[in-house]
């Protein structure tokens, strides 16, 4: 079953086309890697999917339901956008954990706020909150942080912070989990622990979209690769097609540059 279909997505900033007519689809459990040079529109694409930017053209269809259509006459209310956002999770490059909360509270906060707005909350308050906390503990355990529940973000290493951020996104059970260069802010020795967590999610059939510069990681984990260039999806296909066999001069030039950088 197609879990996500993106059709003709476009986004402009003051006349500059950051994302141009990007279309792709994802099956449930697939992992999509988005690669390309800085400024090629990868991050903007993710931000559009999470409604941090409003696309000017195109459609976003999740599980067969159109959740965004730029042509829509009625537009979308804040609460609709908020609801649609929950189909997606987003892990930021810079973690963006909430500094005043412990790791556990960072993970439970959004779930608690959502639960509070449900009608039956008052009746089963204790039970619901216990359920949320149990879920959070389980997820933090699965990213290897069961001994860091009550640490504040500043007491954690970058890799641990990013794993809390992943747990925070997972706690809301998004259909599609997006990563925006999840390891770019990390020291090389901390990159591994975050990539390991993402690999374990892939093994559990989590549908993911990963913007990354880690080429060997991308080719190892992904079912599909999109190469973006100047806002457009220049090529898409299996990792082998894009990363090994592509005859496209642009892709070859990009991969050469990355190789040189890795070799340094």
């Amino acid at each position: 079953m197609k879990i996500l279909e993106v059709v003709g997505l476009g986004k402009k900033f003051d006349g500059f086309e950051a994302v141009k007519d990007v279309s792709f689809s994802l099956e449930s459990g697939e992992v999509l890697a988005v690669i390309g040079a800085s400024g090629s529109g990868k991050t903007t694409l993710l931000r559009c999917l999470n409604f941090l930017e409003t696309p000017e053209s195109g459609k976003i269809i999740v599980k067969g339901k159109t959740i965004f259509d730029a042509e829509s006459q009625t537009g979308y209310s804040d609460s609709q956008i908020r609801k649609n956002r929950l189909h997606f999770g987003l892990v930021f490059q810079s973690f963006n954990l909430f500094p005043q909360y412990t790791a556990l509270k960072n993970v439970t906060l959004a779930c608690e706020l959502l639960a509070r707005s449900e009608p039956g909350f008052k009746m089963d308050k204790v039970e619901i909150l216990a359920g949320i906390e149990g879920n959070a503990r389980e997820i933090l355990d699965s990213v290897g942080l069961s001994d860091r529940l009550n640490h504040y973000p500043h007491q954690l290493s970058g890799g641990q912070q990013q794993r809390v951020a992943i747990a925070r996104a997972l706690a809301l059970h998004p259909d599609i989990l997006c990563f925006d260069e999840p390891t770019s802010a990390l020291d090389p020795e901390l990159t591994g622990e975050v990539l390991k967590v993402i690999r374990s999610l892939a093994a559990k059939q989590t549908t993911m979209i990963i913007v990354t510069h880690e080429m060997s990681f991308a080719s190892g984990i992904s079912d599909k690769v999109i190469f973006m260039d100047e806002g457009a999806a220049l090529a898409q296909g299996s990792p082998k097609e894009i990363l090994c066999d592509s005859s496209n001069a642009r892709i070859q030039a990009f991969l050469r540059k990355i190789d040189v950088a890795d070799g340094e």
Partner: protein
Amino acid sequence: MLLDVTKNLLEGFAVSCQIFGGTLVFGIPLGLLVAFGSMNRWAPFKRTVKAEGRFASVLRSFKPIAFIVRVFIWIIRGTPLLLQLIVIFFGAAILIGHAVFDRVTAAIVTFSINYACYFAVIFRGGIEAVPKGQFEAGLVLGMTRAQIFTKVTLLQLIKRIMPAMSNEIITLVKDTALARIIGVTEIIYYGYRYVTAQALIWPLFYTGVFFLAFVGALTLLFAYIERKLDYIKIL
């Protein structure tokens, strides 16, 4: 004699405290409102004006609510508090024909408006200093703007603005003495009466002791709050 003076000054100090407390109670929420007003992004001409040129582009970025609020802040911060006290108390009475407020109320109203404008600028600085990523993280987790403000931004904001706010609040303690211009019988009014009526200078110094003690207590309170918020390390 000392007991008598103390009793009198305490009476005046109670009035000073009324103005101080009232200004905090009304001035802080009002300041938050003014801060949001000054950051309002409503720009009605953004999409409607299509023309080219410098004037059109200025018009497109024109934000009327933010503009009006910022002009208001300019007027309030740009004129003496003393003048504002007189205008609000006597001006309003002349305009309407009879007294609108009693003296203490007029003082609290004026101080609240005046301090709200100073608070607003501090709040705006604090809000703008919270990284945008915090707000966006809240959004992608499905929170409403109000939830993000109260659950994510607010505490970080309070931590950031504490030093600046403690300055303003300490200044406010001493500014309450200005209310004497509209006949509020605050503490210095009583102190000064001893000078004019009995040629006694020491009660005036004694009023200073009240201020020092009060500001000392506030300083300890601010230090306590800052210590309490120490666990938040802004990343």
